């Protein structure tokens, strides 16, 4: 994977602040080491015959701090690569999508805010659409179709076939089904409904969308 890393920073001549990668990276490591040492302050290092719980982490934190400082210091001796301005759009939306998934998959209460659990049927489409906008090429319709076809596939695969314990449907949807339906039957019915909507959207849009896509590509 690293081989594809074509030296970020080498091509950022117009970046307003020119900070070296090594300075930022090294100082971050020193900060992590300091945090670790602070968290370990109350623990006992023991002795070599009877190692305490703090011995190994403390040694490691000191080592990390020294290496971090070396990396940071190296930025003063030779000009390394410049840190490119971090993009905002991608990371923000990706993190937001993950947080949305976490918040909706099952009941959540944070202080005074509480959300009912929505299950995978809501969590997955929401995070797909939010995450999709992390790139500038995002097209809403395409993402909705993706969400409405991928979600039921996951529901059937993980919930029906593999029996993983992931909440699938919220209570409000389950209440819509007549009594006597089993969990799995409800799951299959909702998945089928979503797939149907996805199919309708896909076929109603093929002509115009494919035309757009051709032009855009």
């Amino acid at each position, binding site marked *: 994977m690293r081989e594809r890393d074509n030296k970020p920073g080498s091509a950022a001549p117009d970046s307003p602040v020119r900070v070296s*990668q090594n300075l930022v990276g090294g100082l971050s490591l020193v900060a992590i080491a300091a945090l670790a040492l602070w968290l370990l302050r109350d623990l006992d290092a023991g002795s070599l015959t009877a190692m305490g719980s703090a011995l190994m982490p403390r040694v490691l934190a000191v080592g990390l701090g020294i290496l971090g400082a070396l990396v940071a210091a190296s930025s003063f001796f030779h000009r390394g690569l410049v840190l490119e301005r971090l993009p905002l759009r991608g990371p923000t939306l990706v993190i937001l999508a993950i947080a949305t998934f976490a918040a909706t998959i099952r009941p959540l209460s944070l202080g005074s805010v509480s959300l009912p659990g929505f299950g995978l049927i809501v969590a997955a489409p929401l995070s797909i659409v939010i995450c999709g906008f992390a790139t500038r090429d995002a097209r809403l319709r395409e993402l909705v179709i993706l969400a409405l076809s991928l979600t039921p596939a996951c529901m059937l695969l993980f919930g029906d076939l593999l029996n*993983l314990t992931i909440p699938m449907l919220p209570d409000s949807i389950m209440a819509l089904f007549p009594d006597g339906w089993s969990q799995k039957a409800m799951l299959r019915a909702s998945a089928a409904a979503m797939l149907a909507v996805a199919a309708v959207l896909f076929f109603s849009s093929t002509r115009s969308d494919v035309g757009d896509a051709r032009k855009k590509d």
Partner: protein
Amino acid sequence: MDTLIANLSLGFSVALGLQNLGLAFVGCLVGTLIGVLPGVGPVATIAMLLPVTFSLDPTGALIMLAGIYYGAQYGGSTTAILVNIPGEATSVVTALDGHAMARRGRAGAALGIAAIGSFFAGTVATMLIAALGAPLTKAALLFGPTEYFSLMVMGLIFAVVLAGGSIVKALAMIMLGLLLSTVGTDLETGDQRMTFGQPFLWDGIDFAVLAMGVFGIAEILRNLGQPEDRDLVRATIGRLLPSRQEMRQSLAPILRGTLLGSAFGILPGNGAILAPFASYAMEKKLADDPSRFGKGAIEAVAGPESANNAGAQTSFIPLLTLGIPANAVMALMVGAMTIQGIIPGPQVMTGNPSLFWGMIASMWIGNLMLLIINLPLVGLWVKLLQVPYRLLFPAILVFCCIGIYSINAQVTDVLFIGLFGLAGFILIRCGFEPAPMLLGFVLGKLMEENLRRALILSRGSLTTFVTEPISAGLLAVSFILLAVAIVPNIRRGREEVFAE
């Protein structure tokens, strides 16, 4: 010899069972799929699929996960040849000459020789594992905590030396990984270490969470910043079988690549990733006319492709015999084994022979399946390559979320893959490589445990590591390696290998 045949026939009887055959096929298929798709690697995929293995028996689970790993090595070459993007890190070198061959209309031959080379390498590596398994396991039983600790130190040093870029940065990443592994309850004293008092950190950081964050989410973030241009060869792929002359040219490179790959794969510390680079450099040195390299030399496809497949398979050896994972994929295998109640180590072979030999036999069967999956079905994979990344990454993200949530049913795990992903992305942006960090994390707990035991045995004397002969030898090797890597001349040579 007789026992080897008896063992292998036991293995084949297990691996040829209908369920295991099916699971090997599923593993190889998924492996090829993610190998073909750039931006999804085996680490993130295996982490995503860990919960799927809950409902399987241990042998079946490991057969499937192993199939994903070596299947990805096959699939990666397809993308490298046809699109000039390495589908996997190990197929970077293949892209150089493989794609050049494709541009000259020899895509079929390149794909063919890659698959043939990989199959040959896979066969040899399987036999090597079978042959080395028993003696190495015996040797491992002689290892005490002192030797284990030194062996792991050597593994980490290997990882530093083999990683690209600055040695100091790689060392720092190892330290960070080791440090992260100490988060959580200390098993010996019961103390909470660096948990911020949060219950979800009491058990420490889950390896699957860290791996998925760093290899799944951070990878998405990195790819988002890069423009998507896929130079898909539109010309027909042509005949898949290489011509007789091409076969003759590739024979020696395949043999050398297999040898190199097998040797690098056994090294603790993710040697497999370097094997294709070494093979490429070697072929170029040995070639009559090195200027053909980069313009579509078939040797430069045959050698590295054999090397990466051999390396992927022999990297199972340290895990199966010593219980030490050599890379992130093997660490996930440890996770899968632990979930099934199996403690990896030398006792697996004696205590659970059907698992051990079944897995080895399935590797050969899997390689045979991959030949079929890859060659005749190549048209299907080409179609798949036309899926744009803008539709791929939301799917990867959701699979990551579902996968990690279903391991422990913890919402915090989901949030943590985001956090580690972001942290990993920033580290990558600062020129740090996450792979050594993961290895440090994987070995951290084992190292601390063995260090503690070794020190108890030696009554607190650190000299035990240099007075015990095996341990001293291992440490000497690591020291020499590190010293050699710092020597300027060799450094330059190493950078050249990576620059190509």
